[in-house]
């Protein structure tokens, strides 16, 4: 018996790492996965003064599996409301995931 899930993806600026993680936690998600990402969007702007000459990525990509679509949309709405006016970012969802194995879901 697998468990249907929605997968919310949020790509935004690295400086928001902790703040977005907190929102995800507060929404009651059982966890999240985060990877370093680069990218290009409508705003070609780097958020920090970190050397761009170096080899660092300035974005982070969050992936959150939620048991229902509502929770994902709630997280996305809150992140967008709090940050997307001033920071670059995108949020999208895919509703056809199935969790095969997890410690809690």
């Amino acid at each position, binding site marked *: 018996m697998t468990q249907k899930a929605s997968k919310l993806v949020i790509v935004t600026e690295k400086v928001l790492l902790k703040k977005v993680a907190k929102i995800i936690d507060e929404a009651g998600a059982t966890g999240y996965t985060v990877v370093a990402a680069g990218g290009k969007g409508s705003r070609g702007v780097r958020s920090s003064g970190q050397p761009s000459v*170096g080899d660092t990525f300035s974005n982070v990509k969050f992936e959150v599996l939620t048991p229902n679509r509502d929770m994902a949309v709630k997280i996305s709405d809150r992140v967008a409301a709090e940050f997307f*006016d001033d920071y670059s*970012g995108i949020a999208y969802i895919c509703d056809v995931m199935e969790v095969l194995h997890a410690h809690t879901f």
Partner: protein
Amino acid sequence: MEFLSDFLTKFGSQLQSPTLGFLIGGIIIAALGSKLEIPDAIYKFIVFMLLTKVGLSGGIAIRNSNITEMVLPALFAVVTGMLIVFIGRYTLAKLPGIRTVDALATAGLFGAVSGSTLAAGITVLEAEGIPYEPWAGALYPFMDIPALVTAIVVASIYTSKQKQSATAGEDLSKQEYLSKQEYLSKQSVAAGEYPGKQEYPTTRQEYRKQQRITASGYPREQQNRVKIWPIVKESLEGSALSALLLGLALGLLTRPESVYESFYDPLFRGLLSILMLVMGMEAWSRIGELRKVAQWYAVYALVAPLLHGFIAFGLGMVAHYATGFTPGGVALLAVIAASSSDISGPPTLRAGIPSANPSAYIGASTAVGTPIAIAVGIPLFVGLAQALMGS
């Protein structure tokens, strides 16, 4: 006249100093498209090494010195830091096509301090054999923090005021907006206030007009009072200031002479040369960002380092005559003022004035401000200090 020719000679020889040579070298190889890369880990390590060294030497020195001498220069550092922000508020921000929050963030960054420029200044003073108070490097936070705090506080006050008048004036449209908003939050519409491939809009009002369906403008909780302590804390916690203060504390409270002399001191110059290379490459790569914003930023970035340096130099001379602050110390205070923050400042401002455009302030500081401070400011203020000593 003699001073000028003296300065030009000094400037000519400065151009041959490794510090400046590597800076210019970095600009040139970046311009030529070189794939040379100083890895991020090395960059962070170098910053740590340099600022720990500055801290350690300061701490060791303070142990044996009369710390009350530091009071007046530290006070002047605070004054300079705050003054720089207000200068920006009433010059840069008044220029056509400049958003006030962007101007304030830029002024805050130019008021804040660059560890690498400070290190370069120390190297030149030592190469020229000009004595300076060993605690002078510890003036860093006294200018850095007040500048950042002032910029963020003034920007917050400005933004709140703007919002209130906006609410008053756009009452009706706001109502429409809110009902649309309710709809949106239920239907999860794609959102965001920045328009697509257009020019960066200069006022919030413009934003609204350019919106697509993907627009945002979510009702944000009102933040009424700006809290100062979190900003100070964030500054102190930054990696550059942390390393400086750690070194200071260790120099003051422990006996780190053995590692200082075998490790931190001998590697200082060499590591600085690599950092200068990075600064040069950075400067070039940020030029593009500077181009995207109003040209006034370039003008400001060209003039401000020297202006700020002169102000600090003037105040430093007051301390020179009042309490015997050395000419070398005066020069270092001026270099600190001329510098603009490259490591800790930008993230602090990004969080503190989120509506400001980072391309404006980072572009202005990194692409123009820092090279000017190092290439023109340091030889200028060191030259002035030598003239002061001669007199």
